[in-house]
């Protein structure tokens, strides 16, 4: 699977993401600076975690208006797959590629720890080769992960099986509505999630639980 990671000033999980993609796909990963206006050919485009533009204005707000974004929106419209993790999820909501918003954690604290995630939907390429209902460990590290959407949007997300991951076992670290940790777009080709699966892909990191998501999207796109 060909993939590309988009880089912003203040991104800091970009190398983790590139390493995870390279290790699991066995292919080199393209990188794209945010001032570009065209994307390289790829099946998966990734917005990595970090603190683009120092989280000024709102997390992800300024990155979501950068020069590369129209190309990313066009790619998503054409059905290309887009993954946003943490700050990337914040960018996807700010750019209107996913509904809702990510607000300050209810505790007001930055949280950096492991949570338990339940794979609640296997409707999209990202999760179709994962086990529905399985609860797995995953790290989080964020200050603004408190997912909010109005009641109608929430009903739509739930009704259409677009909540891909939910915090499980009482480990919701941020107060997100319905324990939402990750959602997909209506067509299923865009996934945004707060937790960092790219940080649990080799033994040195303490586990391999994050690999399933990357393997799933690779299997789906290869099929």
């Amino acid at each position: 699977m060909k993939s590309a990671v988009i880089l912003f000033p203040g991104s800091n999980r970009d190398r983790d993401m590139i390493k995870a993609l390279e290790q699991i796909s066995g292919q080199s990963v393209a990188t794209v600076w945010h001032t570009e206006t065209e994307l390289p050919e790829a099946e998966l485009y990734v917005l990595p975690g970090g603190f683009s533009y120092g989280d000024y204005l709102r997390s992800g707000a300024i990155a979501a208006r950068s020069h590369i974004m129209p190309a990313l929106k066009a790619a998503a419209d054409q059905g290309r797959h887009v993954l946003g993790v943490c700050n990337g999820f914040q960018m996807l909501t700010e750019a209107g590629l996913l509904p809702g918003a990510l607000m300050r954690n209810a505790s007001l604290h930055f949280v950096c720890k492991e949570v338990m995630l339940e794979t609640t939907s296997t409707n999209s390429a990202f999760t179709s080769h994962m086990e529905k209902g399985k609860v797995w460990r995953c790290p989080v590290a964020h200050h603004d992960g408190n997912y909010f959407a109005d009641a109608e949007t929430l009903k739509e997300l739930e009704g259409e099986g677009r909540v891909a991951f939910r915090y499980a076992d009482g480990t919701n670290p941020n107060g997100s509505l319905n324990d939402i940790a990750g959602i997909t777009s209506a067509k299923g080709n865009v996934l945004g999630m707060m937790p960092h699966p790219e940080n649990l892909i080799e033994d040195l990191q303490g586990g391999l639980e994050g690999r399933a998501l990357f393997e799933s999207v690779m299997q789906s796109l290869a099929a």
Partner: protein
Amino acid sequence: MKARVTVTLKNGVLDPQGKAIEGSLGSLGFEGVEGIRQGKVFDLELADRTDAQAKADIEAMCEQLLANTVIENYSIELL
């Protein structure tokens, strides 16, 4: 010309920061504070244009960047 944009959270959107500030005021001994919502203020300096044009321009700025209309309302004041 100068203008001020005030961005506030919509009703029904939880504001944990406002709650924390409310609690802190209570602990300082201020009584009867029944609610606080935290917002943002932007002071703009614009090259001269008509008031109507300024309002239209700033409204576009709010819709596209200054406010996230999923969770926030905005108001515009020409000063």
